[in-house]
């Protein structure tokens, strides 16, 4: 597709369950980012992938959060044993940034709205 695609668009689950959120970046974009947007808040950086390099996981809030990026394309953000404070919109972005072009803007998907009951 032309833009960043995220699925599902909405997810409601019970506290304690695991959830997986998917991001399909723009074709050819080597950089992929995950952010969390809580109600009334700005965006909180979670994790960054660049090609085959080790990801920057410095923003993950706890060890219940993990992310993978397979084949340098699709990424999955997994939250284990969900808590009510995990309720938020999770946004994915991609860019064609790299060492040679580090300042390229990020293009965002529409997000996954996660609600923990």
């Amino acid at each position: 597709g032309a833009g960043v695609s995220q699925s599902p668009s909405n997810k409601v689950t019970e506290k304690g369950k695991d959830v997986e959120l998917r991001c399909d970046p723009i074709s050819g974009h080597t950089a992929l980012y995950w952010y969390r947007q809580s109600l009334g808040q700005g965006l909180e950086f979670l994790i960054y992938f660049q090609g085959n390099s080790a990801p920057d996981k410095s923003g993950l809030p706890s060890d219940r959060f993990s992310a993978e990026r397979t084949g340098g394309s699709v990424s999955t953000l997994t939250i284990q044993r969900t808590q009510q404070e995990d309720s938020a919109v999770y946004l994915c972005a991609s860019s064609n940034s790299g060492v040679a072009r580090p300042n390229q803007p990020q293009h965002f998907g529409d997000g996954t709205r996660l609600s923990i009951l």
Partner: protein
Amino acid sequence: AQSVTQLDSQVPVFEEAPVELRCNYSSSVSVYLFWYVQYPNQGLQLLLKYLSGSTLVKGINGFEAEFNKSQTSFHLRKPSVHISDTAEYFCAVGRISGGYNKLIFGAGTRLAVHP
């Protein structure tokens, strides 16, 4: 450490009036600056960016912003707003870290345009 402050959480304005959304940043190194807009139930869309060069940057939808290094500001302006400009606006500062552009976002300003 970098930070971004959006001075107004909400800005109400009448249609066809001018608007300014304020953004200040702190950083000890050269930065890149961005404004994004978020419409309801959508992701963020890039409005404009400052990377280098001219300090007055023009973006989409008639918006522009001016980079002021001495005041560490990057305020967003539009001379005449439309109802359709009602949205959340985010200022972001980026710096090169580990070979990529790491963005720090402000908390956002909700622009409400009234008829």
